[in-house]
């Protein structure tokens, strides 16, 4: 199960924790769209994500692409190895642009 906590920092930042699979779409979209209201950027912090599969990755990619269209940049940081492995496998950087990743 995934939890998402929004902190209104200099840039709205969403702290993700838990597992990202087929069921995280609604939570992630609602939280990100709430944070993106008028913001140039929204940051997703992946530090406490313990698992991701292609469904969770697909949801992240779709959100990135949708927000790009609406003028908000979705950024990702603190990608743990368990997530980085899957992102690399699925060539996520090429899909969403390397500027998406802050570190």
């Amino acid at each position, binding site marked *: *199960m995934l939890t998402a906590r929004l902190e209104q920092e200099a840039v709205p930042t969403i702290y993700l924790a838990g*597992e990202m*699979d*087929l*069921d*995280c*779409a*609604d939570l992630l*979209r609602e939280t990100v769209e709430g944070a993106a209201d008028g913001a140039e950027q929204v940051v997703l912090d992946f530090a406490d994500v313990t*698992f991701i*599969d*292609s*469904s969770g*990755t*697909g*949801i992240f*990619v*779709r959100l990135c*692409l*949708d927000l790009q269209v609406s003028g908000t940049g979705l950024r990702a940081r603190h990608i743990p190895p*368990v997530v980085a*492995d*899957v992102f690399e*496998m*699925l060539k996520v950087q090429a*899909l969403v642009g390397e500027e998406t990743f802050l570190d």
Partner: protein
Amino acid sequence: MTGRPTPRLAEVIPLDTEGSRRPPTFKVLRYHEESGELEVVVGGGDRFALTPAELVKLARDALAERTFVAHAVPDDGVELCFVPHDDHCDILCIHADMRRRHHGDHRRSLMEILNDLAAAVACGRLRFLTPAQLKTELERGSVVLSRPVTDSATLAVARADVADALAELGFSPERREETILCLSEAATNALIHGGGHGTLTLVDLEGRARLLVADSGPGLDFINWRESGGSAQASMGYGYHIILDHIDDVCLSTSPTGTTLILDQHPRRPEVMSAC
């Protein structure tokens, strides 16, 4: 060698803008060399583009040359792959509406997914099982645990329980991680395409682990494959790609009454990977 269509890649097949809207289909036939019989392993009996006699001739050619051969039949939007084994030749028939080959976004097209399956069969990493072969496989090993998978919550429980059990079976942390990822992909397929309900079983095969993911869905004939890809369902179509890349041996049995995927995995990565 006479009269054989020239092998071609899917990408060079001309775009058929007037093609039918018939749903894509995936079928597997098996030609048994000794008896000369053609057996249906996956899917129904029509839309093979060629006559049985033509299929048998091409299967014999593939067996004689011990070579994987792919043919495209552009007018029918069909690809045929002939995969020779010791005493039989699997014939994979992929039929797709040309206009649906690519989504135009980040998702993989059905054609790419099907070609992954064909390539994996050619490499020997994927075997299609007949119902009789499946029955034999289901009798092997001793069951360690079994869990229903009906939604994300039960899938998470299954992942956690299998991860613990794989540790007991001597799986290294990285091997465990990639195996759990594949389990998640297989179970997600069962949830999305297999009728929304699956069963996961872990079997100890003495020396390696076997994961069985079974559903009672309409079968992997792709007739009911969801390609609409709304925002709620953001699958990228990489499930089988990931599984075939990370599991030592994969077996698939599929029929209109359900699909069973068998993933056999050694506790440690093989030191020498196959060329495929």
